[in-house]
């Protein structure tokens, strides 16, 4: 019975992962990911999902071997559970940072408190995800973190197809035509542009653009996105702002 459920779950993950790979074709970058998670079952879902999304995944089931692995091999991203046997997640992150290893770390936690989140980020984590979470959310955050690894150069302009934004002058142009945006709409667009090609979740947008870390119960983000879409996509042949079902949004040229 249990195995059946498990297989079903894995199948659904595979299916979803396939969708992702298809929709993100051409943009896919293979990342080397370390997952330190003692819950073997939870880890196997994550590993399957990440592998099928095209990443190379290593796994450690306890804090000690996890830290050893993190110190010896070069990873693009690490996903570390907070509560681990032998050594807790936060101390692993602290040890890594002390050893001058600045690989982006996403901390997973079953403690859902805001101040724990703050604690996690203070310890050197780059992002924080509370269990239970959706796999799509995890995937989106990993993509965002991988982008972060290439330091954001002090660029003045971001460009995607014929859409162009000037970060200093706060100007947006599409096909040479100036588009007037509200300050918040500008920040929303800037975030999407910086994560061009990636899927960003609604929660990520609320966190990064509005600085709130709670789940809105209504479609508040959708409304803001559709307002932005009206301004940048309406009247142009190729839509750039896409809705990814069950996951969030993505700004890119191809559908």
């Amino acid at each position, binding site marked *: 019975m249990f195995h059946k459920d498990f297989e*079903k779950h894995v199948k*659904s993950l595979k*299916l*979803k992962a396939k*969708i992702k790979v298809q929709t993100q074709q051409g943009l896919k970058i293979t990342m080397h990911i370390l997952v330190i998670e003692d819950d073997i079952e939870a880890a196997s879902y994550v590993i399957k999902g990440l592998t099928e999304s095209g990443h190379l995944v290593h796994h450690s089931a306890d804090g000690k071997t996890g830290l050893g692995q993190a110190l010896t091999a070069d990873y693009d991203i690490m996903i570390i559970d907070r509560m681990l046997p032998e050594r807790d997640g936060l101390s692993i992150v602290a040890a890594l940072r002390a050893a001058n290893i600045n690989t982006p770390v996403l901390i997973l936690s079953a403690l*859902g*408190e*805001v*101040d724990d989140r*703050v604690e996690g980020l203070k310890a050197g984590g780059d992002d924080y995800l*509370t269990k*239970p*979470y*959706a796999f*799509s959310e995890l995937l989106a955050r990993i993509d965002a973190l991988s982008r972060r690894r290439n330091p954001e150069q002090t660029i003045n302009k971001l460009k995607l197809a014929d859409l162009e934004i000037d970060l200093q002058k706060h100007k947006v142009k599409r096909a040479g035509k100036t588009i007037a945006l509200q300050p*918040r709409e500008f920040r929303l667009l800037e975030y999407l542009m910086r994560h061009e090609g990636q899927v960003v979740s609604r929660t990520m947008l609320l966190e990064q653009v*509005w600085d*709130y*870390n*709670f*789940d*809105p*119960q*209504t*479609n*508040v983000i959708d*409304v*803001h996105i559709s*307002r932005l879409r009206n301004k940048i996509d309406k009247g142009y042949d190729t839509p750039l702002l896409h809705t990814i*079902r*069950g996951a969030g949004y993505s700004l890119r040229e191809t559908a």
Partner: protein
Amino acid sequence: MKLHETSAFRMALRFAGLYSLIAIIALSSVYFVMLQEFKAQVDRELIHEIEELTTHYNQYGKQSLIQHIKNRQQYGRHLHHYYAVADLKFNHLSGNNFLTTIIESKDNINHSLTFFDAFDIVHDEEDDSRLRILSRKLDTLYLLTVGQSNSSIEELQEYTLSAVFIAVIVSILLTLAIGIYMSKQALNKISRINSGLEESINSNFKKHLAIPTREDEFHELSLKLNLMLERIESLLTGMRQVTDNIAHDLRSPLTRLRNRLEVTLLQSRNEDEYRHAMEKAIDDSSDLLKTFNSLLSIAQAEAGVKRNDWIEVDLTNLMDELAELYQLVAEEKKLDFSWIKPEPIFFKGNKQLLAQAISNLLENAIKFTPSGGAITLRAFIENNMIFIGVCDTGPGIPNKDKNKVIDRFQRLDSARSTPGNGLGLSLANAVATLHDGNLQLSDNHPGLCVLLCFVASG
């Protein structure tokens, strides 16, 4: 509990020890001062005596002095005095013979006598008592010695010592007795509280303590304990309710999810059908995740112990941002949204939770107000209270249900058709309570006004 195990008894014991120490110090000081005074008095008497005899000698000569001493030894007033006159070779001339013998054996007296009078204490073997003596040289020819028995001082010394001893014993016994009495009194009250607590625990915190009538610290303690018991009781009830509600409200979406997946697998389908079923399943589980996260937020707000991350929040600015966030949603639904912006209001609290509480109120208002209605967000300070209000022109909530809607998962029948998990107001309420405030629901004629009220800080 045994008497000697109580802290009151141990305290009485310590107190008795301390008190005895003080008594010993005080009484022995008195004893020593008295002793010194008595010795000084004897010495003064001896000096007086020797002066008188010297004067006599100077006036009438040796023979008269010898006679004078004999006379003196026969009169009552001087009976406790001893006298001795000798020449410098210690040939006894008059008075008590043994004194001369003693003095002869005392080198130190002879030595210092060259220049001074000499005091000493000697042992009288006849009487087996001790004498205080004073010797003086007369004209460098004779040695005059006056003595007085020390026995009265020694007796006094003994009496005082035993008096001090008795006083100390009595005071130790008294303090012990008082201590035991007091600890028994306290113990009675404590054991009443103890048995009351035991009853309360056995009755699942339904029974509370009887409050002592006298307003002392036990009265205070019982009141506080009762508050605690009530809180435990309400938490237990709350927990039970929540468990029931979670079981009830999560079972149906979980069953729906499971059935959808099972039915999909019943026969083989084409890929589009599978994908559709999967997407539906993902939507279902997303809703479940949201519900869980809301529950976590409420639990966090209700636990409310960690206050070290509280900061001074600019409420006006926070509401400005939230107004901007939700205005679009309201406009989308053809609602008239107004935000009455006050001067900056600062309040110490958890910014994320406050934001979530206010956004829950806004979401509710937007959700329940039909198109064409109006929503007002405002904040103001009145009587040192901060009010954050969200008013709408929706259907409102009947008075009898106003308390009910704050409970977790509580959704009025009229709200069953709208999406939501019935946790919004519970969270707002929990956040208000966490910040020592409360949530008030009132009529907006027509519609609902929800007010978050806090005591203005600073």
